[in-house]
């Protein structure tokens, strides 16, 4: 109850944020870290540095230091041992769907202990058609309120008529290995899981919004408790349905007044499914998988030589890569 009223106080009250948040800081130290995979970090995770790519590759015996194997960026290998005879010219068309392949890889990864997975997203900007299906699918999947999109798509216009183009940049949470949002949380509500996903413990978040300020990517949003269909003849049932994030059912009121963010759809990962933004992508521009798996599609793409990360200079070590 105390927490709820604190949140309500915080809602929209920007001036009071810092005071309250500072006051809350000592509290966070006292809160023991949860060990549950579903919602809490494993012991020591907060202090643990995420492994970077070259370390991961070195572990697998892959070359490093600019000598990454130059696998073809997008080619989907033919299924091996499937018994399907396909002519070479049919290769692109008849290979298994990248969604099916990634889903198989995901299941393989889920069989490993959580600390041995490294969830990674790859977004091919050349394939992004700027449709925002990912943005909307994510809103629908996580039942997000007005003002919150975990994965907006940014658009730029480059050049002058008639030599001009448009560039689209989907921007989910980067799930950094050095997430600036984590250390600022006064209550330990946000942390990095052993599999790399940066999550928020909704039960613990007090809505101080420190993390929102700290994130250099703008990937965190405050839930002001609004509804899309308020002010209409009636609030609609889809807005009353619980959010299924983190494998729980969160009533609408239980997530009001706190911070929310992309969590790579861990509730879907648990069910062996890819994040909603990945499956819905009409340009097939978004890839997801385990970077610790040398056979995975994301490893292939990250090591293609085309992969870059946003704001690399900040040293945040994102786990979201862009192919340019």
């Amino acid at each position, binding site marked *: 109850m105390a927490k709820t009223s604190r949140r309500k106080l915080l809602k929209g009250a920007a001036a009071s944020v810092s005071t309250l948040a500072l006051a809350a800081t000592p509290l966070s130290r006292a809160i023991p870290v949860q060990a549950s*995979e*579903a919602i809490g970090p494993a012991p020591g995770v907060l202090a643990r540095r995420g492994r970077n790519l070259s370390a991961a590759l070195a572990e697998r015996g892959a070359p490093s230091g600019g000598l990454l194997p130059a696998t073809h*960026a*997008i080619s989907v290998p033919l299924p091996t041992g499937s018994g399907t005879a*396909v002519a070479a010219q049919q290769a*692109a*068309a008849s290979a298994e*769907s990248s*969604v*099916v392949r990634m*889903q198989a890889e995901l299941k393989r990864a889920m069989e490993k202990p959580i600390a041995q997975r490294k969830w990674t997203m790859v977004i*091919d900007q*050349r*394939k992004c*058609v*700027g*449709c*925002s*299906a990912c*943005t*909307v*699918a994510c*809103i*629908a999947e996580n039942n997000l309120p*007005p003002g919150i*999109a975990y994965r*907006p798509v940014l658009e730029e*216009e480059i050049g002058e*008529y*008639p030599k*001009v183009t*448009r*560039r689209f940049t989907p921007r989910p949470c980067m799930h950094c290995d050095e997430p600036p949002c984590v250390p600022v949380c006064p209550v330990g509500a946000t942390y990095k899981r052993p599999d790399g996903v940066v999550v928020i413990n909704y039960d613990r978040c007090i809505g101080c919004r420190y993390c929102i300020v700290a994130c250099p990517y703008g990937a965190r949003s405050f839930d002001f408790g609004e509804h*899309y*269909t308020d002010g*209409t*003849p*009636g*609030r609609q*049932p*889809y807005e*009353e*349905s619980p959010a*299924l994030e983190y*494998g*729980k*059912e*969160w*009533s609408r*009121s239980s997530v009001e007044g706190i911070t929310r963010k992309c969590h790579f759809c861990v509730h*879907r990962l*648990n*069910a062996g499914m890819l994040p*909603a933004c990945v*499956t*819905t*992508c*009409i*340009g*097939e521009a978004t890839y997801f998988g385990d970077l610790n798996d040398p056979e995975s599609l994301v490893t292939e793409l990250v090591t293609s030589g085309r992969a870059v990360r946003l704001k690399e200079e900040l040293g945040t070590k994102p786990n979201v890569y862009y192919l340019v």
Partner: protein
Amino acid sequence: MSQLDPKTIGRRRLLKLGGGGVLGVAAAAALSGVGTRSDNYQTKEAAAGEYPLAKPENIIYTVCRLCNVHCPIKVKVSDGVAVKVDGSGYSAQSMYPHLAYATAPSAAATVDGRLCPKGQSAIQYIYDPYRIVKVLKRAGPRGSGKWSTIPFDQAIKEIVSGGKLFSNIAGEEQREVEGLNSIWALRDNAVATKMGDDVKKILAEKDAAKKKALVDKFKTDYAKDLDKLIDPEHPDFGPKNNQFIFEGGRMEPGRQAVFDRALKNAFGSVNLYHAGGSMCSASVYQAKTEMTNEFVEGKWTNGKKESAPDALNTEFILAFGINYFEGRGVTPYAGRVTDGLVSGRLKVAVVDPRLSKMAAKAWKWLPVKPGADGALAMGMIRWIIENERFDLRYLRNATKAAAIADGEPTVSNATWLVRLDDNGKASVFLHGSEIAIASKEQRPTADGKEWTFDPFVVIKDGKPAAFDPSDQRTVVEGDLLVDTTVGGVRVKSAFQLLRDEAFSKSLEEWATISGIPARDIAAVALEFTSHGKKAGTGEYRGVAAHSNGFSATQAIFSLNLLIGNIGWRGGLSAGGGEWDNMGGKTGQPYNLTKLHPGKFTGFGLMLTRQGSKYDESTIFAGYPAKRPWIPIPGGAIRNEIYPSMVDGYPYKAKALFTYKANTITQAPGGQAYINALKDTNTLPLFFSCDIGIGETSMYADYIFPDTSVWERWGFPGSIPEVPQRLSKVRQPAISPIPESVKVFGEEMPICAESICLALAEQLKLPGFGPNGLAEGMDFKRPEDFYLKRVANIAFGERADGTDGVPDASEEEVNLFAASRTHLSSAVFDLARWQKTVKPELWRKVVYVLNRGGRFQDFDAGWKGSLLANEPRKVFSSEEEWRQDLLDTEQLSAQPKGVMAFYAENVAKAKNSMTGASFSGVAHWEPPADLLGKALPVSDGELNLTSYKEVGQGHSRTASGYWVLGTHPESLLYINKTDADQRHLSSGDRVRLTSRTVPGSIDLGNGATAEMTTRVKVTQGIRPGVLALAGGYGHWAMGARDVVIDGKVVKGDARRGKSMHPNMVVAADPQVPTAVTAELIAGNIATYDATVKIAKV
């Protein structure tokens, strides 16, 4: 909400519906948006890995309908509420390669396919707070926004019986409305059939005096039935039945068959208008149809209106006025294109004055002058012919046998000889008997009659040779360039005609007209002809919506013919087609067209006169006609419905039923229709079936609610973007939102079907109710009809049953029931459903419904180097050939016709405004008004074009708050040069005015819609051109207040931002009550519009 079975309704569902209190709030009683719930959920901990939406029993496969591509989807249901929609893994539209059809639903449950943002927003269209759930009757003048809720049965009775229906409304106290029972004048099918035949004779008579005599004879012959005609002096108008007009907006081949059955084949009106037609891409559709027709029993028919490059295999796509990433086919197509772009397999060039999202990825963006796509294509044709980059081997073939010998899937008419008239104008094909090198031949028709075959002619080695294009055994090739006289007849080959048109201007001239530099035209032509068969064009509304859209399409499509890419892997595909769900193939279980006791065949001129010849009619009065007659319509000519009512040309209307038709905003220039619909003299009775109170239905006398596309049945067609065969089945995924009623004693939601059934019950229309399909076969509920269509799909198209799907396993049968426990008895009852089909078919039906349709496996889309249209082989016997057709061609929808450089049907048609014949061959004509004069453009005017934001439909997406979150309003894109001249910066608000639209629209109810929006200054548009996305600027659909049962229902301003570009399109300068249109197939010339903009 009494229709909800308390046993099958979850606790939360009850809460969401507000228990029994849903309809308690009087003001909003007729709207769905009154759900309330307790806000005190327990936060329920789910077991680790537990994700209810991954469970097969929480998933129903059905079909999206937020655009005309209809992606198969899975609706995920929680406690009876649809909470998430994703693409179906079973469908080639949603994944590639998609899951094998045999995949068990339990395995498919965790595989989500692609889906665009509109489709992802489905939940917000289902649960739209402004949806209506009860019948509304107007409680004030038309358009006043004042409504009363009335019982469904009362509404049906009033519409059928008529009377002083609005005596409570000032000014209408004494107005007697004629009901449908009275309009349904001619009911004797035998008389109608005989009259129809005699009318044909009247029309065929060329001599005016003799025509008059035939009319007089008609009047004598049918003296006792003349009172049933609209006008006995003009029997060609048909019976009074035709004064009942049906206008269906977003129609699909599920409901269309029900509307047709009730209103056309029972009530007997010819005035049924389905789908977008003239407001969409009629001219592109029809030009492509005429260029791919088959020669059947002496007629050119069965052409393919749609095509698309086989994107998974093609190497070059040249897109004219089509946005594969935004408008057309985004979900099935975008990923195929991006895959090719990134792998290096594919190059793309985009012809569009706006830098579309696809243009942004293109090798070349060609910002053509609006309306000059045809000139660009003609320039390419010139370059290709000049440089001999066409496929000579393909083009020389005149018969199927010649094509077979070359391994070509199609044959073209490039070498066929066309007669020239005295003025040197091409007319019709030359026939062998006309130059005495062959004789006519009587051949049997499919239905046992006879037709006369007269061979076509080519020149081969200087001599004429007669041939039958369908000949599978005789190889006939011809010379490409022929300009000669044979047997005294002046002729040219079709290819020669094309060449002459292309060479009528230099490449530089084509460049000047199109606004595309000659070097780019040459580069694109070189690229197009550098990939063998693996290149193709896409073309859509950007081409169609000009007054020259037909000839432009002829030019563009001729490019495909020059390389002979149709039917080739990586070439041009018409799509994989579908299994016949109406059961028309021999041996299918239910032939639903024939299962119609008492079927009625009406006759007469349509109100829009489409498809009829002006010069044959009894109201021919020289040129120009009073209003346009579209001879070869590419769909419904909906822009002519309301103004024709106003003019009473050719006759007056008595009743209008609109279904999902928002013509006022969908038809460019639609603002002019407001007065037509408001006027009770022009239109005495107007009822509508709509999801909400729309911009058009707001003027209706009655509005019936409808089930949304996620609550009902449907059988959307296949699409050209996917080469596999697919039969999609729409089925109820959730309980209906509209209230339940009883029709034929059966409980069902108020919706399009229940309206048809109830009208049939009241009027006693044949073909409905007990024994409505046949003795012992009722048609009392939607499922009685629709499940039989599912059974036809499940059974397949071979009489011996070898084309059927497997029987559902026990596990699947159980899943079928388990996944439908949330459906109310108004739509689902297992025993009742099961009884609608033969017992041996039920498990097959379950198999299909568990997957949301029937989908061919991925590899079936191609055979060798061809799209799945079997390469023509040489067969040792007729039997072998027929067997092969059965095995392959019948299961393929790829074109089998003659690829026509010269389209004879077009050459035979006449322009109703000028009397001139149209041209059968591609050529250039500048955009023009209805009389062929140049369109006036005054100083400072800019060319207004529109496009579709990928998240927007036209009228269906008002409640899409999620997509409005990404694009809250429509911005007017303007080139920086134009903006600087007008001192405009991004964000400035401007008012748009045109020759006839003053910058504000009078809604006829004291309110206006302002033609204002904000600008976005960009480099990504051709100077002189503006672009504004459709779908915004609602003034109805919940955007403004309405009054229901005396209480104000507040509108939501989010739904009304910006403006709709169609609303500012000016009337035609010559025919002020019409909009400028293309006159062969009827497309509205939307993009010929010019406007002025001024900062406000």
